[in-house]
């Protein structure tokens, strides 16, 4: 196989990695917000439940969570949901792996939403009581205070930890190959098995490095944009 052929084969896998990355970020980041608010709720039961949930999701390996999401419908309800989706989509639309990818997306979204929620919670709780009170004594409403005073300060504080998490996320997508999703490393392993080529496996690192480099530049810009004030 030529270098170009290998690169193109790996590129197909990297598209799957990027899909997992993008969906997890787009769904997990907003989903983290209600989880954060539940963890800060003044209503004890809600707070306890959401803290236990976050503890479990953060305390169990993501790979195990992927297995659980993928296999549990079949084991518990005798309905292997994701295999059905796999078959249905590949018969009707000719796209392989759809069910497996769906299972991975669900597991990743829940997992990362919990990590994000803890970052949000830390950010929100780090804003001093004085900022809220300054808003209150001026006669502002709670929602005005949150939107116009607190939010931007929270964003400034969570950008660095969010950046770390986002960079971890692109590397974590490799875990999807535990249920045979054809992300980039799975593709490379395929080449090793069928063509006895080992170098593509190491070559995948270049894809990650370039993407992480881009992310670092973009996230650095965002951080810089918020540099004009100290909080």
């Amino acid at each position, binding site marked *: 196989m030529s270098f170009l052929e290998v690169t193109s084969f790996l590129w197909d896998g990297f598209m799957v990695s990027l899909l997992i990355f993008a969906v997890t970020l787009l769904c997990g980041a907003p989903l983290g917000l209600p989880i954060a608010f539940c963890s800060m709720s003044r209503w004890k039961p809600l707070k306890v439940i959401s803290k236990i949930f976050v503890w479990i999701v953060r305390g169990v390996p993501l790979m195990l969570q992927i297995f659980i999401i993928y296999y549990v419908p079949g084991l518990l309800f005798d309905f292997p949901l994701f295999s059905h989706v796999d078959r249905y989509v590949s018969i009707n639309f000719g796209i392989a792996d759809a069910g497996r990818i769906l299972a991975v997306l669900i597991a990743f979204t829940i997992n990362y939403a919990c990590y994000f929620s803890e970052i949000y919670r830390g950010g929100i709780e780090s804003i001093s009581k004085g900022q809220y009170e300054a808003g*209150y004594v*001026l006669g502002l409403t709670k929602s005005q205070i949150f939107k116009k*005073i607190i939010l931007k300060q929270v964003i400034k504080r969570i950008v660095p930890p969010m950046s770390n998490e986002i960079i971890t996320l692109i590397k974590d997508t490799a875990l999807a190959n535990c249920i045979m999703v054809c992300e980039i490393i799975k593709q490379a392993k395929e080449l090793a098995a069928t063509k006895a080529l080992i170098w593509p496996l190491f070559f995948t690192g270049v894809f990650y490095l370039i993407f992480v480099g881009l992310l670092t530049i973009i996230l650095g810009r965002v951080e810089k944009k918020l540099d004009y004030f100290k909080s």
Partner: protein
Amino acid sequence: MAILEVKNIKKSFGKTEVLKGISFSLNEGEVISLIGSSGSGKTTLLRCLNFLETPDSGTISVGDNVLFDGENSKALTDNEIRENRLHFGLVFQSFNLFPQYNVLDNVTLAPKLLKKGSTEEIEQNARALIDKVGLTEKIGNYPCELSGGQQQRVAIARALAMNPDILCFDEPTSALDPELTGEVLRVIKGLKESGSTMIVVTHEMEFAKNVSDKIIFMADGVIEEMGTPEQIFENPQSDKTRHFLQNSLEKI
């Protein structure tokens, strides 16, 4: 006529009774200085007036409005509390400026959000207030670019922008380096001259003596002594007052 009438305010946190029945009144254009050792309940009293804490009992009236009545057991709604707060302004010991807004935006934020006038009116008024506290050159600067004294002066302009009936200060110079207290105290003095009604918690005895119409000395949650600056400083009646004044002189 009294613009503020506080009657028998009590406040406990858990089992500790912090305010044990505070009553006083304040006329329009008057300045009261609130003095007393740390932990005597001065901050708690100001926070009750600004509805950051809810008193357990007593009444608070501004003009003809009874804003709070402990007897009337139904709790105030968020909106009623917000409206009550508009009668008061509060300047904090730690400034609490909004860091992401420059000086002008700090001052205009609340009037704009609460639609206190047209944008031009609000900005014009804000510029006048910023000029009054002597910060016209810093109008576009962010709080992190200002000294403590300048930040506190912005906080005063911000409070004034909502045009409160009564402006409260909680140790406005305690967080400042000694060489910066003067600029803030001069601004407060200027407000007195232009007729603002104010309650100032302070440890600056000289300032209290010069600016106040009335001094309240608080000890352990009660008003131990209340009177004109002459009465309190020249001829204190209570042992506690004498003791406190002696100690605060010794520090200097």
